[in-house]
């Protein structure tokens, strides 16, 4: 993208015209049907060994595109972004087990059902329960996926258990395998496939389904021409057995609860859509919840900063005064942690360490990862501060008759502290921003809570605008406090 294009884009951002979904005529004219599928959802859709998306949804989408006489373009879409993508017209259809719910029907339209979704319980032999109602105990942790409608349903049916929210389908089963959670209440068909990754665990499925819901293909609200076409083709695909054959191909068995003929009648046309309208009230109502998250963000930053400073000081001393092997060790630590992403470091602490028998909570894994990462960067800052003290300065102090202790307290330390204070203060801000990574591991700090809110109210732009403002306020406040502390405590002049 050239500078000019970027400029045009920025101009467009200011006068954002509303892009509506594409009606059938536009799709036929462009020759391309854009379908959103979940990239991490085998056997529905996932990247195969050849790097291409494959699965039940992918085959259904391909058949639909074929029947409409257009090319298929697959767009990887995470659970939380399905509805916003449809509303904006980035995708024409959304697959990926989109359950038909009244809340969603207020925002998007659905085709006739594509498949059923029988809610059941996946757990291990460790948990001695026989019915799903037995799970309603505070000592049980249920794992669930952000953005799935089962999250809210579960809170009604099973209010007592603790919950752990993760971002991917594979992560739910991994959480149970690694002992972070006890059970998953979800569509058993979708998730059972992942249990094969953990053959050593004694997996169990509770027999009675809690309830059955139906998944349709999501279509932007008011895009009636496309919906009529999809309904027509989908009904034909149900009737000639294509859907059933594809389900058997990818799941190995028939659908637990099949789609009945009675369900195969198109819905009545919906009222026409208007474009995106900003609504702030549902986000503003959540301000206290977000503020609570901000405190957790600060907490993560404080702990990581304190631990990182301790590690950093030890590493800096080792690199300056240590024996040769110690210097090499400290140097290796610094270059490993400063040359790889903190995110991947935390991936390893959180996802890989449990294979070695060490299971850390999400909060602890993030804090540990950030501390180790901060330690490496702070070691460099502190080392620069320590070596910046000139020998002549120390010599002068000695000539003036200052003792060893006085030289340390009145010459060496003030010099070092004044040199490193400002870089340390800005690193603290970096850590406050970096703590947002915790959201990707299910820690409900500021960003995590913003993701939770936006997946429920679908007001992503509004939610993240407010979240950004909170971060801005938080870091401005922190900078002001740090500058004041610097001025009073160590007489660092403000920048």
């Amino acid at each position, binding site marked *: 993208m050239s500078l000019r294009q970027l400029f045009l884009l920025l101009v467009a951002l200011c006068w954002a015209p509303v892009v509506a979904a594409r009606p059938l005529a536009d799709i036929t004219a462009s020759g391309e049907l854009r379908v959103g599928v979940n990239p991490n959802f085998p056997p529905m859709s996932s990247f195969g060994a050849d790097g291409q998306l494959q699965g039940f949804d992918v085959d259904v989408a391909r058949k639909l595109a074929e029947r409409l006489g257009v090319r298929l373009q697959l767009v990887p879409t995470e659970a939380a972004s399905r509805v916003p993508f449809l509303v904006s017209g980035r995708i024409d259809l959304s697959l990926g087990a989109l359950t038909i719910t009244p809340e969603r029907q207020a925002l998007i339209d659905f085709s006739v059902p594509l498949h059923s979704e029988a809610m059941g319980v996946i757990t291990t032999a460790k948990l001695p329960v026989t019915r799903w109602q037995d799970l309603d105990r505070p000592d049980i942790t249920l794992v669930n996926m952000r953005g799935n409608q089962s999250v809210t349903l579960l809170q009604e049916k099973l209010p007592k258990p603790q919950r752990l929210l993760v971002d991917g389908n594979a992560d739910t089963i991994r959480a149970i395998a690694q002992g972070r959670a006890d059970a998953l209440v979800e569509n058993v068909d979708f998730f059972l496939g992942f249990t094969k990754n953990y053959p050593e665990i004694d997996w169990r499925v509770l027999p009675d389904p809690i309830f059955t819901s139906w998944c349709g293909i999501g279509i932007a609200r008011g895009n009636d021409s496309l919906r009529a076409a999809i309904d027509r083709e989908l009904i034909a695909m149900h009737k000639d057995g294509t859907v059933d054959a594809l389900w058997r191909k990818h799941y190995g068995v028939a659908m637990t609860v099949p789609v009945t003929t009675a369900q195969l009648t198109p819905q009545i046309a919906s009222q026409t859509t208007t474009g995106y309208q900003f609504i702030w009230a549902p986000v503003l109502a959540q301000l206290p919840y977000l503020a609570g998250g901000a405190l957790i963000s600060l907490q993560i930053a404080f702990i990581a900063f304190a631990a990182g400073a301790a590690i950093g000081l030890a590493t800096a001393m080792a690199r300056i005064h240590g024996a040769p092997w110690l210097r090499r060790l400290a140097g290796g630590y610094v270059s490993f942690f400063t040359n790889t992403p903190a995110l991947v470091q935390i991936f390893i602490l959180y996802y890989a360490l449990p294979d070695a028998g060490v299971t850390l909570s999400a909060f602890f894994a993030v804090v540990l990862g950030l501390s180790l990462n901060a330690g490496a960067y702070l070691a460099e800052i502190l080392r620069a501060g320590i070596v910046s003290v000139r020998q002549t300065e120390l010599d002068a102090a000695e000539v003036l008759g200052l003792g060893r202790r006085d030289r340390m307290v009145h010459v060496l330390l003030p010099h070092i502290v004044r040199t490193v204070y400002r870089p340390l203060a800005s690193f603290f801000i970096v850590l406050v*921003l970096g703590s947002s990574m915790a959201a990707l591991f299910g820690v409900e700090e500021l960003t995590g809570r913003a993701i939770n809110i936006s997946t429920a109210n679908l007001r992503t732009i509004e939610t*993240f605008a407010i979240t950004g403002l909170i971060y801005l306020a938080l870091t401005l406040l922190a900078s002001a406090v740090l500058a004041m502390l610097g001025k009073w405590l160590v007489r660092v002049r403000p920048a």
Partner: protein
Amino acid sequence: MIDRLLAQAPAFFTLETAAFLGLALGRTLFMTIIGCGLGFAIGMLLAVLRNSRLPALAPLRWLAAGYVETFRRIPFLVILIFVLFSVQAIAPDLSLLGIATIAVVLVASAYLAEIIRAGFESVPQPQREGAEVLGLSPFQRFHLVILPQSWRVILPPAAAFMVMFVKDTALASHLGVVELAFAGKILVNRNFSPVYGYGSVLILYFLLSWPLGRAAQWLETRLAVSRRR
């Protein structure tokens, strides 16, 4: 664990895996180079604007200062999500990689503007006054006096920033951009051992970042030596 590693070795060390990781590496590089390159250009514009003394430009200077402060104080992850959903309304055809690159440009331009401005301010005030007295035009003052002297102060931290950003692009994995970090996660979800999945990704990041970091350090010492003359 060793058994599992050995058993998976033939499946992992294939051309397909190499191509998959290579593509991911390319996306990481694309976001860093294009994002930081454009960010540098925009950052330069912002810094020149903030360095100007024209009273008429005061409101723009305020805007630029606000922009720089804002994007340096919001987490990259939050900016990524915000851009993802804001861009939907204008350019629904833009790829996820393009969206992530726009987010990189926004953040990089703010940080680099600050680095460039600090470079400009390192030129002593008497020199600016001297140039003005000599009758140089504002453009000549910038082009002949300020820029040649501030390059040396700007380049090392700017290079260090870009090296740092190689690693920050890992967060784009959350959008679904199949860059290095996401590639590692996909490999692990495909049931490869994390030693392979994350290990190979860590090695690639290191191979990318370490030489670049070294180059930035070399630049710093080289420019610092010549500065002392």
